[in-house]
Each structure stands twice: as structure tokens, then as C-alpha cells.
């Protein structure tokens, strides 16, 4: 148990302080937003998907902890130029791998927030009404427990 990895390693802090494509995309074709029930933090993702089902451009915005914001930045950076199939095949496990440092179940939810939003965004054309608050694939990750305490 002792001497765990530093979650906030340099690479993570770098992405947090100097994020990739943080902001909104005016001409987004797809977008989605969701929150993390653990904390209420929100991530919003805008995508421009071209006629060949490739992600031409991706931007994110939101508020949240270092893990959620840095991982969103990493994800957005990675996802540009990828095809929708590639996005669909990008698993939660791979997202955790992309982030890097090992996370406890609670913090995995932070890291997977943007991944979850992305998976929904590719099914959410901007003209349509958003399917529902938390549309897209109904993934259960990180164990059943999202309750709080104190």
C-alpha cells in the first residue's frame, strides 16, 4: 500500500494548467454535457464530425477537480482525427491508462467523466434535443456506490 504513485504527477498538472482546446466550438456538429454525481462537477464537449465520421475538431469546457480537467484535456487531445468507430472502441480502461496514475474507484469517476461525455456526444447531434441528461450507452463503472456520507 505504501508509496503510491503521485496522482498529481507533472504531466497531469501540466494538462491542468495548460489544457488542450479548453473552450467552446461555434460550429459544433455534436455536443454533450454531463455531471459527476460524486461532486456535481460538469464537463461539456463540442465536436465537429465530418462526413467521413471523423472527429475534425474537439473542445471541452467545465469545472472540476484536477483529475477531471486534466483527463478531459488529454482525451480531447487524443481524440482529434479519430474515427467514430475508434472512439466507440476506446474503453474506460484505456481512458484510465491514458490518464496515467492509478486511481481509487471514487477518483476514477473523475477521470471517466469526460470519457462518458464523449461517448454520449458522438450520439448527440447539436440540432436534436439532447437524448436525456445522461444519454448514450448506459455504462456502470466504478462499482455501484455513488452515495455520499457525513
Amino acid at each position, binding site marked *: *500500500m505504501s508509496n503510491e504513485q503521485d496522482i498529481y504527477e507533472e504531466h497531469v498538472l501540466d494538462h491542468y494548467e495548460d489544457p488542450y482546446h479548453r473552450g467552446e466550438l461555434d460550429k459544433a456538429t455534436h455536443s454533450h454535457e454531463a455531471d459527476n*454525481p*460524486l461532486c*456535481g462537477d460538469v464537463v461539456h464537449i463540442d465536436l465537429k464530425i465530418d462526413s467521413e465520421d471523423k472527429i475534425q475538431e474537439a473542445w471541452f469546457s467545465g469545472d472540476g477537480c484536477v483529475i477531471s480537467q486534466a483527463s478531459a484535456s488529454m482525451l480531447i487531445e487524443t481524440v482529434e482525427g479519430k474515427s467514430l468507430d475508434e472512439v466507440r472502441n476506446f474503453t474506460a480502461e484505456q481512458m484510465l491508462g491514458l490518464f496515467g496514475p492509478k486511481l*481509487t*474507484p*471514487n*477518483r476514477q469517476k473523475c477521470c471517466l467523466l469526460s470519457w462518458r461525455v464523449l461517448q454520449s456526444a458522438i450520439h448527440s447531434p447539436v440540432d436534436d434535443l439532447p437524448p436525456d441528461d445522461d444519454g448514450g450507452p448506459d455504462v*456502470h463503472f466504478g*462499482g*455501484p*456506490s*455513488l*452515495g*455520499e*456520507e*457525513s
Partner: protein
Amino acid sequence: MKTIPTLSTCTPLNDSELADLRDQFPILSRSTASGAPLAFLDNAASTQRPVCVIDAMSDCYQQYYANVHRGIHTLSEESTEAYEQSRKVIASFINAASEREVIFTSGATASINLVARTWGDQNLREGDVILTTIAEHHANIVPWHQLCERTGCRVEFLPLKKDFTFDDETVHQKLRELRPKLFAFTAVSNVLGTITPVKKWVHWARELGITTLVDASQAAPHQPLDVEQLDTDFLVFGGHKMCGPTGIGVLHGKENYLDSMPPFLGGGGMINRVSVDGFETADLPDKFEAGTPPIAEAIGLAAAAKFLRQIGLDRIAAHEKQLAQVADEGLRLIEGIEVIGPSMSHKSGIVSFSIDRVHAHDIAQELDHLGLAVRAGHHCTMPLHRHLKKSSTTRASFYLYNRLEEAHRFLEAVQQVQKKFTPSGRKRSSRPQD
């Protein structure tokens, strides 16, 4: 409930294994108030705990305890992990489709009340019927009486046959005739020991669109349970009757049921959002677990489930039956004693009886004097006792750690008791001076 394998299909507990098992229950080596060595035959009321269960809870408290959920620090992560792991163990213990279907409550009674106050209030209306059996524990009667008071529905009771079992034809007929909204019944009677054909009854109910709730309080500790196979909508049991701690019980519900039900207790943990105007309910299983849950108790219960599984539920059932058979058949041979329950082929390790003209409480008191712990009274089944025209009965109930010798001791002791209270021409006199 799987049918209980006969002794030939599973290896019985042998003497040395049993001795090892008993060593794990320190309390079994004590005496009763009279100084007689204890034979604990009150297992249907509550069982004892092996050291591994007690240790699991002590370890939790001494090594990694903190409040669960949303906690980020190490202890909270570890406790949350252990708590949710316990849920998985219980889900697997009853073969639930998902651990989201496993709700931890404070006991079997609380589990039934939860269903009555949520699904019941939501679905029952004036004139609706709840069907149950006359052999139910008060825990599976009173919440429905209360529901009747709130909604105007009514409860109907299936009668017993003379042989203390239920007539399948009557059950089927009542289901078709009454079209109850709910069929709530016990898997094993805590007095008669009668085992009901859960799978068959649930199947009939399912065909008629009737919701089922099975009280598995006396089944979960003693037989393999498979909620997928039984196909129950709701199934409940408690921790303390299966070598687990007090203060915890389980509600298993089919996910679609639990999802569509309103929450029960309100508070922390069961919400996604609270404002001054209202609240939004959390997902399963949190939705039904308001407040700090029974953390150490869940961990203890999981340890108990593992312990039972390791021995083998079918072996436990076979062992108990073997002992109960000795007691049951022995009692039936004694004149003036009536066994209240079906023959061994229809029941679990529970042997209730009465002695002509001897009060159940006197029997229990005198048996205690002789070292045997049994229960006397109505065992929380007053309607059953009225049905049987008995004010009370005495009950011996066996568990995995009981020995054949204890069944024999029990038989002898009962005869001694019978003799002690048989009229013998006594004459009252003033109290002898000390």
C-alpha cells in the same frame, strides 16, 4: 430452493470436522445458569457466530474503518471497497443478477416493511388483495395489515392442511380466484419447519402477473438459494440467523421493481441532488440505503456467507435434518407429546412440540435447567397458533454446529420434563421452614 440433497449425494459433516467447526464458536462451550453444559437449540430465533465473523468486524474497526461513499481518504476508500465487496458476496450467495439488486437493510423485518411502504403504497388500492399463508411470522403479516390501514386493501390467508403442509391445489386456486396483487409467503415456517415449494408457487404467480415476496429468513441460513432460478420479485432475510451479526438484513428485488419504486427512508446517500424545494433520487442500490449503512455488519455478513458456503449449504441442510429427524421421530414415539409440524420429508431442522398439560414456558425453563436452550411461546406467529388452537409451543431448532448427541440429550430431557410436571398426588402444605 433447490431440493435438499439426500445424505447420499453430499458428504455429511463428520465428527472431526464438526469438532473443528464447533471450536470456531466459543460460546458453545459454556453452561446455562444451572451449570449444565449448553446445547444451543434456539437457532431459528438467532444463531451463534464463528470467530471469523467476529474477527471480520473487529478487523474492520481496528484496521480500516471510516464512513463509506464519496470519501477520498485511504480509510474511506478501503471501507467503501470492503462494504461494496460484501454486497457482491451476498449477490453471489443468492445468485442475484446484479449487486444493484442487493439492498442492505437493518433486518428481515425492515426489508419487508420497505417493500410494503414503497411498492405497496405505490401499487395497492382499496379492494386489492394480498395473499399470504397462515403460517407467516408477524414480520410478514403486520406490515400488510398496516398497508391495509393505509390503502384499504385486504389480506387473505392460505390455510394449512392437517399434516402441516399446504395444499398446492388450494394455492393455485386462490391465486386464480383472488387475483392478489401480491403473494407474500415464507420459504420455511419458523415454527412448523414446513418448506414451501417456492419455485412452483412463484411460477404460478408469475403466470398470473402476481408480484411475489418470499420471506427467506429460515431458508437463507440453511439451504442453497438461487433467486434467478426461483424467479422471486422480492426476497428477504436477516443476518443474525445465518451466523452473521445483528443489525443487518437483505432485501433482494428484481432491478425493474426496485427501479420503479419510490425511495423509502430519506437522507444522505439516497439522493443525487437536494434543494430547498425537493430532491432527486440516486440510482440503485443507494436509493434504498439512506444514512450511514451498517458497514461493519455488512462485512460481518459477507464473512458469514463465505463461511456457510465453504462448508456447503446442502451439507448444512443435510446435517440439520439428520439431527432434527432424531428429535422429531423420537418425540413422536412418546405418549402425551405432539409434534407440531409435518414429517421430516417436508421440513427443515425445526422441531416444535407440546406436552399434554404442561405449559410451553415451563418446558423451556426446565430444559434450560438441564442445559438445553429452546424457545417457548407463539414465536411471532399468533395467527398460526390460533389456527392450531394452541396458545404456545416449544421449539428446538438445529444448526450446523449441533451434534447428534445433543438431539439425544434433548429427547431424554423432554422426557424428564414431562415426568416432573406430571401430577403425582401432591398436597399443598405451608412452606417448609428454611
